[in-house]
Structures are given as structure tokens and as C-alpha cells.
């Protein structure tokens, strides 16, 4: 086998591999470009002010495209989800990291991974058949397809992420901190709440941000379980429609390249920016914690 052939093969593959690396940048750029391009087409026909401050999302003939109800819905349901998932997640992570013995840890980790493996449609289905009726019974209302349902389901979806990242963060707190605290006479609990958790704070915040990012971007769960009414939400027992659900519902039927079509890209861009910011923040904080951790 000639050296020339081997050298050429080597060079070919080296170039091929670099090319695929560049393609990932191209992919991100492509997605961003597609969103912006179509959003611009939208803003050429409507007033940005109306979009960002409008209280009505009502496409149709001379539709109004106000994004506020969608944002309010998204905020409502994800805030509720975090309210449930953050304490549960962090406490579970603390337990797994600091109190569970090896055997229990070996059992719990697969449990969390299994929870994470459940697809969003299945969780949404759960909302329809179990949690929704449960909520309806509890509050004496017609049906349970509302923001509360969505919050519970989104909490289930974000929990594995929060638990995993938080557990890493708590575990990474140097043993010396804990030893110092115990040496001073504090017990395990005081150490946990006054030393370990505060020390792990940047990592915990990162865990929350990542969980939040997941919750904001979820589609099927909220689509199936929150009612999808377009009115501006009134409270947790109200039916809501998030940005993601709106795109999912309307994209299938909207005619190509109409204002409505572009409007959906516009809200997708808003969604993209929100998740980007949340994820970047989470990353920055995580980077920060890595410096102090190990």
C-alpha cells in the first residue's frame, strides 16, 4: 500500500471531520436565520408594539397578534412548575448526595434516569387521565386541563434535570468544608443547611436554570394538559396556552407564507431567545461554580 494513498486518506478524513465541525455552526446559524428571516417578514406587516404589548392572540382575517397572553401563560405554568420542582429536586439531590448510602444511591440513580426517560406525550397523557380529573375533583371544577395541571406535569419533566445537576453540585462541595463545620460542633443538618447547600449555591442555581429551560421549551405536555384557551390567563385553575402549544396547534393548519404563518415564527423567535438566555445564564453560573467547587 503506497504511502501516498495512506497520506491522502488521512488528509481526506481530517478534512471531512473538520467539515462536520463547521456544519454544527452552520446548523445553529441556519436555525437562527430561519427564525429571524420569517420574523422580519412578520414585522413588515404588523406593528412590533402591537405584537409585544397586545393582549389578544387572535389570528384570523384581520387578526390581532398580541403575544402577551402566550407569555403570561408560559410564565404562569413554568413558575408553578419551578415552585414544585425546585424544593423537591434540591432536597432529593441533597438526600442522595449526603445521606443515602452506596446501595441506595445505586438504586436511586436508575430511578431518576427512568423518570427522565418517560416521553413528554406520556406525561401529557397522565395529565389528561389522572392529574386533570384529580384537580377537577379537588377544586370542584369542570375539568382539570389548566395551568395547575401543566405545572405539576412540567415539574415531573424538569425534576430529573434539576436533581442530576444539583446532586453533582452538592457532591462537589469539598469535604473540608463539611469537616470544618462538624468539627465546630454542628450536626449533619446544620452542616447541610448552613454550609453545604450555600457552598453549592451556584451549581444549584445552574440546576434550576437548566430545569427552567426544559420546562419553557416543553410542547406536548402543555399541549395536552392545559386546555389551550386563548384568553389571558386568570389564575392557576384557568386554561392557558403557552407559546409552544400555540406553535404546535396552529402551524399544522396555517397557509404557507401568510401573516399568520410568519407570526408563528415570530413567537418561536421569542421562545428561542428566552431559552437561549436562560441556558446561557445557567451555563455561566455553572462555569462560575466549577471554579470554586473541586
Amino acid at each position, binding site marked *: 500500500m503506497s504511502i501516498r494513498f495512506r497520506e491522502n486518506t488521512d488528509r481526506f478524513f481530517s478534512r471531512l471531520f473538520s467539515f462536520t465541525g463547521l456544519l454544527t455552526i452552520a446548523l445553529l446559524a441556519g436555525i437562527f436565520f430561519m427564525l429571524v428571516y420569517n420574523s422580519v417578514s412578520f414585522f413588515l406587516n404588523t406593528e412590533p408594539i402591537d405584537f409585544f404589548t397586545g393582549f389578544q392572540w387572535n389570528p384570523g382575517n384581520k387578526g390581532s397578534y398580541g403575544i402577551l397572553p402566550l407569555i403570561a401563560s408560559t410564565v404562569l405554568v413554568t413558575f408553578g412548575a419551578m415552585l414544585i420542582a425546585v424544593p423537591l429536586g434540591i432536597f432529593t439531590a441533597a438526600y442522595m448526595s449526603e445521606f443515602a448510602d452506596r446501595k441506595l444511591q445505586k438504586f436511586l440513580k436508575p430511578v431518576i434516569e427512568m423518570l427522565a426517560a418517560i416521553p413528554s406525550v406520556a406525561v401529557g397523557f397522565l395529565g389528561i387521565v*389522572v392529574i386533570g380529573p384529580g384537580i377537577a375533583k379537588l377544586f370542584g371544577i369542570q375539568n382539570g386541563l389548566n395551568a395547575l395541571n401543566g405545572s405539576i406535569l412540567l415539574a415531573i419533566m424538569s425534576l430529573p434535570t434539576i436533581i442530576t445537576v444539583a446532586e453533582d453540585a452538592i457532591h462537589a462541595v469539598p469535604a473540608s468544608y463539611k469537616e470544618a463545620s462538624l468539627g465546630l460542633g454542628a450536626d449533619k443538618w446544620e452542616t447541610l443547611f448552613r454550609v453545604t447547600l450555600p457552598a453549592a449555591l451556584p451549581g444549584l442555581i445552574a440546576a434550576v436554570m437548566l430545569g427552567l429551560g426544559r420546562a419553557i421549551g416543553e410542547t406536548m405536555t402543555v399541549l395536552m394538559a392545559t386546555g389551550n384557551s386563548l384568553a389571558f390567563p386568570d389564575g392557576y385553575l384557568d386554561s392557558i396556552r403557552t407559546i409552544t402549544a400555540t406553535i404546535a396547534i396552529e402551524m399544522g393548519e396555517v397557509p404557507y407564507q401568510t401573516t399568520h404563518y410568519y407570526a408563528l415564527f415570530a413567537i418561536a423567535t421569542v421562545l428561542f431567545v428566552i431559552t437561549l438566555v436562560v441556558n446561557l445564564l445557567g451555563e455561566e453560573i455553572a462555569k462560575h461554580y466549577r471554579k470554586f467547587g473541586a
Partner: protein
Amino acid sequence: MKKQKKHIGGWILLLGSTILICTFLVNIIFHLFSKGIPVLSWDFIFGYPTDGMTKGGIFPAIIGTIMVTLITTVFAVPFGICCALYLNEYAGESTLTGTIRASIRNLSGIPSIIYGLFGLALFVQSLKLGTSMLSAGLTLGLLSLPYIITTTEESLKRVPNSTREAALALGATQFESIRDFVIPQAMPGIITGIVLTIARVAGETAPILFTGVAFYITGIPGSVKQEFMALPYHLYMLSTQHQSIETVRPLAYGTVTVLILIIFLMNLVAFYIRYKFRENE
């Protein structure tokens, strides 16, 4: 006394949370399976929907899911492995490399519905592939890319540098050292990543909503340019859009059970490979 209170409080919070989470999982699985497993029968798994989708089986949805997942894998795996090889074996720490890594991180955080939109704009419309299994498969492929790249890179990192040096010192080209030693040694980890990706993709609905999935199809698609049925979408339709939601509820339970069983099975396979791999390390 105060310390006792704290202890009890602490235990309630921590152990309570953990137990709650475990019961979530158990309850979810129990509820879904208890109503779903009775529905599973030979006819259900291998039969076609009948009577206007109110009876029958979900075979086309199972096949559709398998086929679209296959397309995803064929597309994303080579792409992802090549990119991971570039990052771990060739790239130095330059701004370009940093940008690539940042892109991958950002791509992994993008909501799946936006991938669906991108697939619609790129594959369905621009490339004129239309709503088809191919469009959906490619869209899911893009969605899986960051995960495959990350898991592959982790596996490549675990291969000790001494092996690479030994091969190169004998006069192998970098490609040959990768082909003959790095990839074979990283293979178990790579395969685990692929299996886990398949498990995720099988349950994804949002990216396929406008790129090719359908509910009413009479048979299994003959070509990749046709629309197809898929388990997650089938579940979605049965539980929300169907005319007689109550009647088909059992079918929905059966569908979700099959879907979760397939996903759990894939996860078990991945666990097993990872376990055997760690044993040999």
C-alpha cells in the same frame, strides 16, 4: 429538643422529597401499565387500526416509529461521530473550536418544536421533500446531533493517549490510529450513546408534527417520501383529537404502554452495555 425538631424537619424534607419522587415514578408506571397491559394482545401489537381508528391495533405506528428512528440514526450517527472525532482528535483550543462547542451546547438547549419548524422550513419546503418520513427523520436527526456528539466525545476521551502514541510511533497515520484503536476502544460508549438517543427520539412528537407524521393511514408507507404513523403522535391523537375519546381510551393506554416499554427496553440495553464496558475498564 430544638435539635430534635430540626432533625425531624430535615428528615421530612429530604427523605420525604426522595420518597415522593420515587412514588411519582412508581405511580405513573403502575397506573399506565395497569390499564395498558390488559390491552396488549397479538392483535393489538401486530394488527392495523380498524373501524375508523376506534378499534384494532397499532402496528403501523410501531413500524413507523422504528422506521423513522432508523432514518434518524443513519443520518445523525455518522455526522455526530465525525464531529466528535474532530473535536477530540484534531481540534486544538482555538476560537473556532470554542465556537463549535458553544454551538453544540446551544443546539442542545433549543426546544424541540423549533427543530420542527426548522425541519418544516428546510426539508419539507426548501428541499421539497414534502411531509414525509424522510423529512421527519432528518429533523429528528438534527435534534439528536448534540447528544450523539457529546456522548461520543466522552467515550473518545476515555481512550488513553498512550494507545494513540504507540500507533503513531510505529508509523500509522492519525486516521489509521483512530480507525484501528481509538474507535474500537470507544465503541461501547458510542453505542450506549446511540441507544439512548434512539430511546429519546422514539418518544419525540413536536419535531414530527409538521414534518410528516399522520394519524389516518391505511398501511405501512412504501417509501420514505410518504407520511407515516408514529407511536407518540398516535397517543396524542387518541387522547385529544379523536372524535370518541372515551371509546378509544383503552387504545391510548395500550399505546402509551408499548411506547414506554420500548423506551425502557432501550435504556436497559444501554445500562447493560455501560455496565459490561465499565467492568472491562
